[in-house]
């Protein structure tokens, strides 16, 4: 028996640590899918309130996939994806000593990339961004999406291929 399994999600400290670990990921996940911050916030709230209501039935080990499933099902076929707006990490810009031309070029590329991202199918964009921004491993993304790791690799491969095609204007 793992110590974790003996813990109950109904316990305040267990619940709040689950929140700290996964709330941001769920927010990003739903945002990458639908490009809507409000909906992403709602999904976080919905998923965690549901988790609390079912805290006696869901073990801490299962909490993660429970949250993903609730968040995922919330907008299933209900809303249309909007444009995803991403920020460019300010930190890297400030600390570089690149010349202005380079910065301009890079900003342009970022715009191209963002446009290309919005042209991707939802599942490719979500997979790509979860990996690139959140640093999620393929295995974890597979768990979130409820598909195999191989399927995620395929999505990632296609995402990169499609992005390049769009950016290079082929």
């Amino acid at each position, binding site marked *: 028996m793992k110590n974790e399994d003996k813990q109950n999600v*109904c316990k305040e400290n267990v619940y*709040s640590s689950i*929140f*700290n670990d996964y*709330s*941001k990921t769920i*927010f*990003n996940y739903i*945002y*990458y899918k639908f490009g809507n*911050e409000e909906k*992403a*916030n709602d999904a*976080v*709230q919905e998923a*965690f*309130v549901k988790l*609390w*209501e079912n*805290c*006696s039935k869901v073990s801490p080990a299962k909490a993660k996939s429970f949250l993903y499933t609730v968040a995922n099902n919330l907008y299933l076929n209900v809303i249309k994806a909007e444009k995803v*707006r*991403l*920020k*460019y*990490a300010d930190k*890297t810009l400030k600390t570089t000593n690149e010349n202005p031309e380079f910065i301009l070029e*890079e900003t342009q*590329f*970022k715009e191209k*990339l963002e446009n290309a991202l919005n042209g991707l199918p939802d599942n490719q964009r979500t997979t*790509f*961004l979860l*990996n*690139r*921004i*959140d640093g999620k491993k*393929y295995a974890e993304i597979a768990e979130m999406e409820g598909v195999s790791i*191989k399927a*995620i*690799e*395929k999505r*990632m*491969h296609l995402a*990169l*291929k499609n*992005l*390049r095609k769009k*950016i*290079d204007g082929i």
Partner: protein
Amino acid sequence: MQENYLAKWLNGELTEAELKVFKESEEYATYKKIRDTSEKLQAPDFNMEKAWESIENHRVQKAPKVITLAPFKTFLKIAAVIAVLIAGSYFYLSTLGVTVITELAENKEIILPDNSEIILNAESELSYNEKNWDKKRNITLDGEAFFKVAKGKKFTVTTEQGSVTVLGTQFNVENREGFFEVSCFEGLVSVTMNGQETKLSAGYSLIAINGAVTKSEVTKNGQPSWLNNESSFKSIPLKYVLAEFQRQHNITVDASQIDDNQLFTGTFSNTDTDLALKSISTPLHIKYELKGNKVLFYEENAP
């Protein structure tokens, strides 16, 4: 190149040889740019504290529910079982309905919810369901009864030997062991015996003795004689006559010394025992001896 090599490359899973080939390809520059640029992207700000607060609010509202739900559930289960039992027994009891029984030498008059009248002859049992009376006029009869049925939905009298269906009329049903008689005094009744339906119009009666069916006449718009405290018979085997006598006078009959299959036509009083015995014995040329609660019949010329 292996399958999904772009995904493998991002994950650093390409072999050195594969990486070398990939790096030499035309597209590599763009792929590298995509990788490096996408690394610097950021999702919109997520206000974790605010999210936590709003969830807290929901949890506070839901918290008592969560705690009380588990014990409450068992209570609900028990309550549900009890409710089902109560409802079930209520419906069961309501289907049982009303039962009226008459003893030997006793008649009873019953007024049904729709003002139909039933007069129940001696040693008979009748039951019906008061609850659904308007929808289903159904009577179960064991014995003999006279019916004055008010107009309305189909009125059915069910007995072991057959059923009688009417709409609104006056008729008599006698259901005794081996003997089944339906007499129609007004309107039209339908008698079903062994799956066979017979229509009986006013002024006729149908008699089935051990399954043998005969039709005879009765007085139109009349009444069965027993309502006037008399029992009338027309070519009926003596044993059924004596059985009726036994019921009406509460006297045990011993007919072992006479032929009780001979036919009897006549009437006896249901009130005056002596007169009744005379009415039975005289036409058949038999004698009787009444001792207390018992009567013995014997042949006239017997020793």
